[in-house]
């Protein structure tokens, strides 16, 4: 079937894509700049068409625990919020990761800390890829850089979540959430009515009880569970790295950026090339797993690397680990809700890396 062309906001694209992906449930609580996800789903009222449940919970904490419950039953469930709301969900995310359940969490990031601002930022990188909640766990983290990817990554997220029985986060930001672009929407998928064998759907006489829990008071058991989790994360690191490269084949200087910053950096590469400076861009699409290997390879070919992120310097730590001292690495980014401009990236690369 042909894909349908629409002009949509990133937030609306997430919502429509969730319906079309055959999601079973969405549980959310409004917060700028992602409220359109909940609003769109409420208006679309998919309970009348696909049977998908859309519910405004009493709080973010309630919403993530509804996701926990839905996921335990083997359902395709999701929630979304923006930074302060995602902080509230961390306990639930840790439990979901511990209980090895699939779900999708969308973070349309705004500037922090605290209530911060409602403008776009990328300062939740550490929280998303390093943990956020307690315990040794990882989410798979996808970073969309366009409205099209806001739609496409919903289906991909559910696919990865169920493949690895692991929570997946789409780490977006206010700019991509609020921006309108063309988007080609996939046809409606049927909601799956057959549940995975681990799901708690009621015990038939033919098998043992399914138990979903993150608790094990026996430390030996808990250590083994942790080792199993780490083995799973290692498989994810080996198999699920996704990235996009832009003019890297002959690049002397490399920009590394994701999401909105990657779009800005793509323009910066064009401006730099027009000035005769051979710049290229590596855009991590997955932030966990991080494209460590490819960055390490490129580090052997370039003279310097600038990591661009709308934060005080979070992803740059993973770039530094990948580069391991081969070439100079610097960070550049605006803070508190200000989107970096391509011209600023150009100036910074020149002053910090090329002349530095």
């Amino acid at each position, binding site marked *: 079937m042909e894909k349908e*062309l629409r*002009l949509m906001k990133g937030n609306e694209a997430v919502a429509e894509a969730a319906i079309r992906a055959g999601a079973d449930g969405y549980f959310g609580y409004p917060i*700028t*700049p992602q409220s359109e996800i909940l609003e769109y789903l409420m208006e679309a009222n998919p309970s009348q068409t696909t049977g998908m449940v859309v519910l405004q919970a009493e709080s973010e904490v309630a919403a993530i625990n509804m996701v926990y419950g839905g996921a335990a039953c083997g359902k395709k469930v999701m929630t979304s919020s923006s930074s302060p709301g995602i902080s509230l969900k961390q306990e639930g995310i840790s439990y979901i990761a511990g209980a090895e359940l699939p779900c999708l969490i969308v973070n349309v990031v705004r500037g922090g800390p605290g209530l911060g601002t*409602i*403008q776009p930022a990328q300062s939740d990188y550490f929280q998303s890829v390093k943990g956020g909640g307690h315990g040794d766990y990882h989410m798979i983290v996808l970073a969309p850089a366009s409205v099209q990817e806001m739609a496409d990554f919903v289906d991909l997220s559910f696919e990865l979540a169920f493949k690895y029985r692991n929570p997946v986060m789409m780490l977006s930001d*206010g*700019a991509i959430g*609020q*921006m*309108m*672009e*063309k988007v080609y929407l996939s046809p409606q998928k049927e909601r799956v009515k057959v549940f995975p064998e681990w799901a708690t759907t009621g015990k038939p006489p033919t098998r043992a009880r399914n138990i979903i829990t993150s608790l094990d008071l026996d430390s030996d058991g808990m250590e083994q569970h942790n080792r199993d989790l780490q083995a799973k994360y290692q498989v994810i690191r080996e198999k699920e790295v996704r990235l996009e490269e832009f003019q890297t084949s002959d690049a002397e200087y490399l920009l590394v950026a994701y999401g*909105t910053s990657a*779009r*800005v950096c*793509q*323009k*910066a590469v*064009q401006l730099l090339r027009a000035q005769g400076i051979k710049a290229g861009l590596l855009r991590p699409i997955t932030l966990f797993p991080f494209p460590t290997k490819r960055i390490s390879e490129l580090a052997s070919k370039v003279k310097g690397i600038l990591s661009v992120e709308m934060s005080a310097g979070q992803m740059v730590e993973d770039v530094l680990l990948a580069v391991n001292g081969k070439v100079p690495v610097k960070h550049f980014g605006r803070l508190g809700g200000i*989107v970096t*401009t*391509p*011209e600023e990236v150009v100036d910074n690369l020149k002053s910090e890396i090329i002349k530095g």
Partner: protein
Amino acid sequence: MTEEIIIAGFGGQGVLSMGKIMAYSAVMQDMEVSWMPSYGPEMRGGTANVTVILSTDRISSPIVKHFDTAIILNQQSLDKFESSVKPGGVLIYDGNGITRHPERKDISIYRVDATEEAARMNSPKTFNMIVLGGFIKVKPIIKIENVLKGLKKSLPERYHNLIPMNEKALIRGEEIIKEVHKAK
């Protein structure tokens, strides 16, 4: 071809919807578009702006610092964005309420008195379409027929009776826009 446009004015003037209609029209012509609004705590009477990029190629940054065209609908926006027009670029403004007029000599300046004209036509809500008509006259990137197609697609059917009025406003905008200064 890539055209980077900023539209800025008061909240409630139809700044965001003008940008949306522009984007829709370009989609009708198979172009790539991005529409990036300022989404701060704006309200009626506050300032609002939107960056619209229309291109025949894939659009890189949806956020830019310098614009090919600035469409300016109040004094605050003029003060803020006059300097952001690229040399040789275009500034279109509505003279209503403007006390300090644009002064740059290295850009082309056009004036479209849409507030006044909308009042004369007795349809203040078509104000932004008069401005859009002016823009189309200066930069014929999108065609009026595609604007109408876009409106038809984006408006609920119950509003389709308003389309002829919008068409009239677009054409009126094309007629009344005046060149104030040609870029040197």
